[in-house]
């Protein structure tokens, strides 16, 4: 009944698009898949980014042990008052726990993280002892 009501008011054009992808919107979002991360590395550091829209800083926990980075957090579903309904629900919610093995040890004191516009960026400097060293060749 509510669905009919909604369709009358606001009709997503891409409704057929979601029908081609039957998993979208029909099953509860899986916590294991969300959120997505990208990891960049250079000789000096690693940069880890993730799209975490609508999450407060306080709901994200970052920890590093040696080469292993763990990011934990959660996002809540929109809350409904009485008489309100979700004619359409796609956004993921729940807890997540993601672990990455980086190619080098991290200098834990130098880690910086920022969250802006729903994008988390963690910069992880490579531990000094791990950095590639340039060996000077002395002349005799």
């Amino acid at each position, binding site marked *: 009944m*509510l669905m009919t*009501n*909604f369709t*009358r*008011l*606001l*009709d*997503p*054009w*891409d409704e057929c*698009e979601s029908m081609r*992808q039957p*998993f*979208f919107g029909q099953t509860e979002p899986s916590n294991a*898949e*969300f959120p*997505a*991360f*990208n*990891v*960049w*590395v*250079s000789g000096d550091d690693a*940069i880890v*980014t993730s*799209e*975490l*829209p*609508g*999450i*407060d800083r306080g709901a994200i926990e970052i920890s590093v042990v040696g080469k292993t980075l763990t990011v934990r957090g959660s996002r809540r579903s*929109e809350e*409904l*008052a009485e*008489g*309100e*309904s*979700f*004619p*359409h*629900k*796609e*956004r*993921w919610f729940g807890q997540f726990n993601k672990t*990455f093995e980086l*190619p080098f040890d991290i200098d834990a004191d130098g880690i910086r993280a920022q*969250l802006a*516009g*729903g*994008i988390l960026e963690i910069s992880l400097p490579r531990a000094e002892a791990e950095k590639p060293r340039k060996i000077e060749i002395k002349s005799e």
Partner: protein
Amino acid sequence: MAEVAKEMQKKEVETKEGIERTRARKVYTPAVDIIEKKGEIVVVADMPGVDEKSLDVTLEKNVLTLYGKVEPAIPEGHRLIVSEYGIGDYQRVFAISDEIDRDRIRATVKSGVLRLMLPKAESAKTRKISVTVE
């Protein structure tokens, strides 16, 4: 398997056959929740990387378009070793019926989440008709 999961996470907007985009960037469909309230409909869309300056909400006739521009921030001199999501713009189009009061549509963006408030026109709200005894 991981590829499939990625596709499900961030869907690219599909263009109709014969239409090509002029900009060389990817456009994704943001995940959307729609909440039906008594006096309004609220559309909540995940658009990370979009702020009030890079978001366009346009209403033309009965077509409401959300378009969020995202400037790709690729760290210089780095190589990507894990890639679970692509970076690009966001677009989603809705058709709006006459029951929405067009003049009072409002939009806010916070932490990469767009909230669009679509108030129902007075005439569309459920009216209670009292029955009197003759």
